[in-house]
């Protein structure tokens, strides 16, 4: 069942399904490697859940919770 990237726990992996963002913000996340089909893993999560660091395409990238909430993923069980 698809959920958002912000809902994943530390160490959990998922495939990106969709970016519910537009314009420059969408472009920016895609340039950082968050494109549909790509595998991501949660590397670190602040206690408050914001920010969250992900490993995507071999590099650690931190996102704001608000950004992660707009990325739909399919968890890899």
């Amino acid at each position, binding site marked *: 069942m698809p959920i958002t990237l912000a809902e994943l726990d530390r160490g959990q992996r998922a495939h990106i399904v969709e970016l519910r963002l537009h314009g*420059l913000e969408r472009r*920016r996340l895609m*340039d950082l490697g968050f494109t549909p089909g790509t595998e991501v893993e949660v590397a670190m999560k602040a206690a408050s859940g914001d920010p969250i660091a992900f490993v995507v*395409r071999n590099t650690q990238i931190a996102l704001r919770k608000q950004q992660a909430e707009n990325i739909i993923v399919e968890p890899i069980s």
Partner: protein
Amino acid sequence: MAGCQCAQATTCSSHGNLIRLGVNIRDFDYLIALAGNPNTGKTTLFNALSGLRQHTGNWPGKTVVRSEGAFRHNGYKYKVVDLPGTYSLLSTSEDEEIARDFILFGNPDCVVVVVDATALERNLNLVLQVLEITDRVVVALNLMDEAERKGMFVDARKLAKELGVPVVPMVAREGKGTDHLLQTVQDLVTGNLRTQPRRIELDPHIEEAVQQLLPHLKNLYPNLSNHRWLAMRLLEGDPSIRRAILTDSLAQTESPLAPQKEEDMSELEAALEV
């Protein structure tokens, strides 16, 4: 080889014909820009080329450090500029704007894109974006030792064929590949080597819009090297490109464009209304 003392020597085992010229960067023959994602070894390569004496300051009007150096190789004098590390040239950040403006308006004779051989999937995004802007590109396929350590085999020749530009395997930290890189850069800047950069084919209706914009842009900015790229960004609604055109941030680069006028911009905007 780190700490090599060959600054004034004519040859040394790891640097071949490289002579570092430090801050003596007047009257160079060719200008080289180093681009790449963060942590790919740009500064390592920059230091290997220009030696310890470099000119550092800030990019005009920015808080980002700008490093310049110079070296001589096979009798040609080069000025080299270390661009900020970026994942993209399209989005909004000071670093990306600096890198993009320099590649687009700084008239470098060659852009060396330093890539991490262990993370090509990520790194090639920037390579393709640079190839959209200029065909004078050499890819420095760095961190080959790391790739080997991880059991990865990267086929540099196949990559070069697919990208349409030369790809030089390197271990910048050990000075490996430096001479091959410089020979390739020389072949490119002197016209001995032609590239055929891989570019994305646009949808017919977008291509049509680009074609409508081109004559206007060529008219307004005759000195610009890539009107097509500019047209695509304007169609995309990129606010930083519009800003770069309107403000004098372009005049701060090596080769300023003709003075900009507001009427020119309105004419362009009228064309964009289509």
